[in-house]
């Protein structure tokens, strides 16, 4: 079975949307502690719109799926998460070349680097990068070691979750939470939490595809 065809990527987006909806209130509560309490609602609205856009006109090309998701999130998420998640999917769409696990890993890495460039943030700043970065590393390492994509994505999801948990003691250096300074420590970052759901969704939706 082809791993990253349009159907596989669409399934990824569907699963991400389901997880965001399920975790909507939890994401908002995390954001209420160190942000402006809208992350859950914003991402829930945006991912639902992305699913609707994919259903209204299902793209045939895998990259077009990611592009549709990018532009829909940009239009509907709002705040900083819209351009950041939008850039992730936009750069992933541009880098997707091939239909195997390695191509998926390359696309996701490009998306991660796009978020780094857009947010001018780095790991340790208490952002979504603290989950996405370790996930990309784990994915590359596992595929490089010859592990099947299923297992590699599961390791990536575990790495994302560990990265998310590691944001708790961090002091935020980017975004609205950085206004809190030292007071941002002791709270799990909402962006790293939603980014973990994105990786978790890939591990679930692409399972059995290679």
């Amino acid at each position: 079975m082809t791993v990253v065809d349009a159907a596989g990527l669409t399934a990824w987006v569907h699963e991400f949307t389901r997880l965001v909806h399920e975790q909507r209130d939890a994401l908002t509560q995390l954001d209420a502690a160190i942000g402006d309490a809208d992350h859950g609602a914003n991402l829930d609205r945006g991912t639902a719109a992305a699913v609707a856009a994919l259903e209204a006109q299902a793209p045939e090309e895998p990259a077009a799926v990611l592009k549709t998701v990018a532009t829909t999130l940009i239009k509907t998420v709002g705040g900083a998460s819209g351009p950041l998640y939008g850039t992730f999917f936009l750069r992933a769409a541009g880098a997707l070349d091939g239909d195997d696990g390695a191509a998926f890993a390359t696309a996701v890495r490009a998306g991660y680097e796009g978020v780094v460039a857009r947010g001018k943030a780095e790991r340790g700043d208490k952002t979504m990068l603290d989950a996405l970065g370790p996930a990309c590393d784990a994915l590359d390492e596992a595929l490089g070691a010859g592990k099947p994509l299923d297992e590699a994505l599961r390791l990536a999801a575990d790495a994302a979750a560990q990265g998310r948990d590691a944001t708790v003691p961090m002091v935020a250096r980017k975004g609205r939470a950085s206004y809190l300074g030292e007071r941002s420590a002791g709270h799990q970052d909402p962006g790293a939490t939603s980014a973990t759901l994105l990786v978790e969704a890939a591990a679930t939706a692409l399972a059995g595809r290679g």
Partner: protein
Amino acid sequence: MPVGVVVVSHSRALAEAAVELARGMLPGRELAIGTAAGDVDGGLGTDATAIADAVTAADSGDGVVVLMDLGSAVLSAETALELLDDEVRERVVLSPAPLVEGLVGAVVTAAAGAGRDRVAAEALLGLAPKQAHLGG
């Protein structure tokens, strides 16, 4: 054709008022000033696709200078660059100038027929009179 000017703001009302204020500096002169402000529902927010559309509409071939308010407006303006055609993107300057002061400097210079880089430079100087006056 003059250089295009686009205002990006979280608030439609803020963008329109800033444009009205800047237009007051242009009695009897025509200048198209684009806006991309607010979210899709008219609430507070910015939308990179709307910014890309406004930039494309404002570009007559001589480039566009984009003024923006703060925070995610900056991220959205940068994201909009990625959505533009390569040819248009090369002619766009995202100005770090303060929105109101920068806009006034930009439109006065653009209406006088200056090129894109000169318009962007004037926008950046927009804060200087206030700083000089207040001794800052």
